[in-house]
């Protein structure tokens, strides 16, 4: 039963990250795509936490969804000028 709940949660998170990746590729607005990439990272970090890898989850959460998103936005702003 416990195993089943874990599998179900992991599948939901996996599907969410696939949807995020699809939005990131196919959305015509670049800002939406960047935020979708950040969401994929966030979901991935929760998934790592579920799979008992808190070290990796911390790295993914802080670098993937915070710093990378910020740097993407800075770059986008620079390109638009």
């Amino acid at each position, binding site marked *: 039963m416990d195993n089943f709940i874990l599998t179900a949660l992991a599948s939901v998170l996996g599907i969410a990250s696939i949807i995020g990746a699809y939005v990131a590729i196919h959305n015509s607005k670049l800002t939406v795509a960047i935020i979708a990439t950040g969401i994929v990272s966030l979901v991935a970090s929760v998934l790592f936490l579920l799979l008992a890898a*808190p070290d990796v989850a911390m790295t993914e959460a*802080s670098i993937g969804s*915070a710093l990378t998103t*910020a740097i993407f936005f*800075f770059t986008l*702003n*620079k390109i638009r000028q």
Partner: protein
Amino acid sequence: MGKKTLIVLLMVAMAAVLYPLYESYQGSEQLTELGQYYADNGVQDTGAANLVTSVVVTYRGLDTLGEVTILFLAASVISFFLSFKKEDRKESREIRNITEILTTASQVLIPMIYMLGVYIFVNGHLTPGGGFQGGAVIASGTLLMFLSNPDFKLSHKVIHYVESTSGVVFVLIGVLGIFMAGGFLDNRILGLGEVNTLFSAGAIPVIYTFLGLKVGTELSNVLGIFVESQNEQ
């Protein structure tokens, strides 16, 4: 139409190729030989309660040195290319006035975030986390500083000195390991202490502190370079 059908066909073919892998997968109940060794002897060898840390810093310390080098190279390349074109670095940039609420609140939040980062890398040998994670948290605190206080400037001199000093100290501790203990980056140059206390695990907390400082300053520097080339419209 042809292209989309091709993509769907390709995906179906991929699924057909990969499905037997899923079908025949059996989770292994036992650790591999190497993993078994780490699990059995890691705590006695290194004195670190967090086994991941003992692997990352001690057993595979050389790989960590390689990772740090990669990060350093990436930061250097970014700063080189973004400061290369003089016309990109503007004298000043125009931004919107920042709300008082954010400015006031960040004065409480930024020390808290920095403290969390320091906590993460100082306790790297006891709890999950370590130099890289703590450094990234510190850099996100710096990001909040940039966002909440437009007059804030990173001192490139301080960043430069902190970064190079921590890199050199990291390598020096590794070299000390050759002379005073079993080999490069051996953590037994300091006493192992009692497992699960703050001052334990030999040189691991020292290494992680300098690693955290190095990663934090590098990422902060990258952010600072990006911020300086902005001009909001």
